[in-house]
């Protein structure tokens, strides 16, 4: 009980009318990717913060007391949509009566989305893997914020145009890089289904061990099926994602080895979260480039059969 009064005293006031001395507009985004997009599309007068740090799996995120305060203090909110953030997304939507809320998936045409089940809300949420869809999300963000902050509309438009050019360059780069691979080598085998949009955009086929939820476990049959599959298609490498453990794919590599097929475990790919700040993948642009380089280099080396 010691110092309880003191603890309570520390609780910062969550009054939304608190005026920031620097005059900045605070934007709170859910994932590190959504925060990165907001950072890129919004001019400096907006201060962007992400609830989930780099490397945090949005499926397994747990909020802290500080998040409550951050959410209350934020002037505007950004989330991905398509159920990626689960209940947190629903809470963000409910704040629309109080402050501007941007749902990035609103910028996408439902025909450009990949269905994951027969139900109305069953879409694959990993659309940022296709830079052109991420561009649509950027359009949505730019439009929402220009509408909410007309005094900054020109600056937002300018920043958006700069970023759009960068996304165009990125898209072209990835396309060229993948073109170096022969058709038969264009396979992305990963732990969970995050590369469907990437595969569709750049003509690569995708297969994964798990379903969408990183929480669901994989079975023995999944591993055995994948081993047979990899050998049948002579796939050179499989990939782990930065938010899940490599345990599952280690089993596949071992399984292939026991059948005399030397499968490589490629570098870990970034999917639902950026890498640590200052690292090789701390922005969306870097993340897609690093992923592409990892994929192309690993798949180029011909598989060894012993």
């Amino acid at each position, binding site marked *: 009980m010691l110092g309880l009064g003191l603890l309570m005293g520390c609780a910062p006031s969550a009054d939304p009318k608190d005026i920031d001395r620097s005059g900045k507009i605070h934007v709170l985004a859910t994932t590190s990717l959504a925060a990165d997009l907001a950072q890129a599309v919004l001019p400096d007068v907006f201060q962007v913060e992400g609830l989930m740090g780099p490397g945090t799996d949005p499926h397994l995120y747990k*909020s802290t007391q500080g998040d409550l305060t951050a959410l*209350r203090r934020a002037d505007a909110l950004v989330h991905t949509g398509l*159920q990626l953030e689960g209940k947190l997304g629903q809470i963000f939507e409910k*704040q629309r009566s109080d402050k501007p809320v941007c749902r990035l998936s609103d910028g996408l045409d439902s025909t450009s989305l990949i269905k994951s089940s027969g139900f109305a809300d069953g879409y694959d949420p990993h659309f940022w893997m296709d830079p052109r869809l991420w561009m649509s999300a950027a359009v949505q963000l730019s439009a929402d914020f220009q509408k909410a902050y007309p005094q900054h509309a020109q600056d937002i438009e300018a920043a958006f145009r700069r970023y759009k050019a960068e996304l165009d360059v990125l898209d072209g780069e990835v396309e060229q890089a993948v073109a170096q691979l022969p058709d038969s080598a264009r396979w992305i085998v990963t732990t969970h289904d995050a590369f469907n949009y990437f595969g569709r955009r750049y003509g690569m086929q995708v297969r994964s061990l798990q379903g*969408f939820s990183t929480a669901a476990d994989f079975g023995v049959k999944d591993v055995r099926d994948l081993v047979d599959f990899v050998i049948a298609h002579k796939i050179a490498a499989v990939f782990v994602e930065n938010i899940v453990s490599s345990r599952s794919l280690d089993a596949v590599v071992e399984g292939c080895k026991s059948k005399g097929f030397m499968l490589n475990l490629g570098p870990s790919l970034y999917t639902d979260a950026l890498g640590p700040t200052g690292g090789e993948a701390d922005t969306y642009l870097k993340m897609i480039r690093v992923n592409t380089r990892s994929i192309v280099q690993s798949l180029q080396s011909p598989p060894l059969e012993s």
Partner: protein
Amino acid sequence: MSTDGWWVIGMGALVALLCAALGSFLYLRRLSMLGDAISHAVLPGIVLAYFVSGARESLGLLVGAAVFGLLVTYLIDWLTHKAGMQQDASIGLSFTLLFSLGIVMVSLWASRVDIDADCVLYGDIALLPFDTWSWGGRPMGPRHFAMLLGLDVLIGLLLWRGYKGMQLLAFDRVFAASTGMAVGLWHWLLMGGVSLATVFSFEAVGAILVVAFLVIPPAIGHLWSFGSLPRMLAVAMLSGVASSVLGYGLAVWLDSSIAACMSTAALLLYGMSWIFHPQRGGLALLLKKKRVPHAPMMGRMR
């Protein structure tokens, strides 16, 4: 302190009162882990509800979860009293059975959908102040707070009306039946109450807090009951409320998960109350330098 903080503490207190009261009866019947069992057993209910409604946010999920919460209590009761299995084993068997059934259903039919209790059912007490409702245009505060308040009143009424029956049932099921009272009725009212209370609380504040509050405050209450059930209930409810207040302070101080801090605070309270207990406490044992025989309080309480 901010209004948000008070709402969260108040919500913690409502969950604590509810869970401490119900949990005390469960504790006496050696069913403390029922909350944890229900937290797993709801999975098939969620999956089925998803298939019926096709949406991951609906009242159907709650109903599906509550039905399976009740089903697991029925299974446990059947295995214990009809199939003659040890009660702890029947709890373990029942919830793993339903949980695995849920996993199989997900992997068969919904492996490409992100569906599990964590993302579609369990709420988060930190997000409570952001989900509000209004009535006739007037803001009424957090939606889940009102829901829990209603649930507290409902369960309070149930325990008040059924106190005699539940008390007898808690200590001696056979004797209770011999007095001609409707044992089954009170048993199922209690189990229904537990299942409803836990599932709705899961939706409002998440699983860990509910499971912790079903077990720890009743354990503190039992320690300080000295043979009186009303005292056990009072101490349990009081320590539950104290855990909410302390836990919130802890969460602010550490900038950590509020639910985990409230559970930790309850454990700290249990530790303290054990150390300073006059007969069974750590200090008392140290001073007396001999073990006091553990008094089996279960059957003696009236």
